[in-house]
């Protein structure tokens, strides 16, 4: 047989990245910053978002795309704190959200009423690092009940994130977690990473986090 070679050299993620660019442009035109919240399971993303919605959900016009492997539990929890703008995406077992799912979720949201968007990714520090969703930035959440070496174990995620939230700081007296070492590990991977220190349970540290969010929201929507 005669074999012909076809040069392709196409990125496997090309289609996802194209859709992500469309999402990014749509959000840019609407003047909506979008944060992709990534973490391992159980780090407190949903509780952090619950407090955030309760405190400034209305003030900042926050909408959430809540991704979960299975169940709508997180979206239901979040919807209790706002009477609008929570869209559930159930990935059916998939380990990450992709740009198409976010694009479709945006169709179901009222972007006119939205000034800030959170995308709560599936709890997983591996795969979500590889999928561009069209977000403004990734924010990685990790907690003091995890190891200080989390950033070293999952470097791609910490490399791709612009901000980190160290959560569950109310447990610091009870767990052998060295904050300085965790921060040094993270900054060895990503020297520009900015930190917040929170307890989504007690509310400690949330003022700084909420202040940061206020700064991210444009004062007025573009005409």
């Amino acid at each position, binding site marked *: *047989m*005669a*074999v*012909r*070679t*076809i*040069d*392709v*050299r*196409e*990125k*496997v*993620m*090309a*289609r996802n990245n194209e859709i992500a660019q469309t999402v990014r442009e749509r959000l840019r035109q609407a003047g909506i910053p979008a944060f992709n919240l990534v973490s391992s399971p159980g780090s407190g993303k949903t509780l952090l978002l619950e407090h955030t919605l309760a405190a400034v959900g209305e003030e900042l016009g926050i909408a959430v795309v809540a991704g979960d492997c299975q169940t709508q539990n997180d979206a239901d929890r979040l919807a209790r704190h706002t009477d609008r703008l929570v869209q559930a995406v159930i990935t059916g077992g*998939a*380990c*990450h959200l992709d740009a198409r799912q976010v694009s479709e979720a945006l169709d179901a949201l009222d972007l006119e009423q939205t000034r800030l968007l959170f995308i709560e990714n599936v709890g*997983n520090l*591996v*795969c979500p*690092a*590889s999928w561009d969703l069209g977000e403004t930035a990734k924010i990685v959440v990790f907690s003091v009940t995890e190891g200080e070496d989390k950033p070293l174990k999952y470097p*791609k995620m910490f490399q791709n994130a612009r901000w980190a939230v160290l959560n569950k700081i109310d447990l610091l007296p009870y767990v052998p977690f060295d904050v300085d070492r965790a921060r040094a590990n993270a900054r060895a991977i990503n020297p520009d990473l900015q930190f917040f220190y929170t307890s989504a349970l007690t509310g400690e540290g949330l003022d700084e986090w909420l202040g940061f969010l206020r700064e991210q929201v444009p004062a007025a929507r573009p005409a």
Partner: protein
Amino acid sequence: MHELSLALEICRLTEEQVGHDALGRVVTVAVEVGDDAGVDPSNLEFCLEVLLAEPPFVGATPRLLRLPGDDLRLSYLEVDDGRPDD
């Protein structure tokens, strides 16, 4: 962890290149896997072997090319063009 969905996307890109009817004549699917692409090469190879053994493919072989960097690309395809050997 998501190698199967990547393998499916590689099959879709292959179909985009050669057309559905020619998928049975694909002999080799070569994929460039960057060391920092977040992909387990042996897992991806296994997923591709499974998919390429099933119709509309007819026993195409995956070939993984390890490279530095974080790219994951469908590199090239080898297709039996149906002509007898020259």
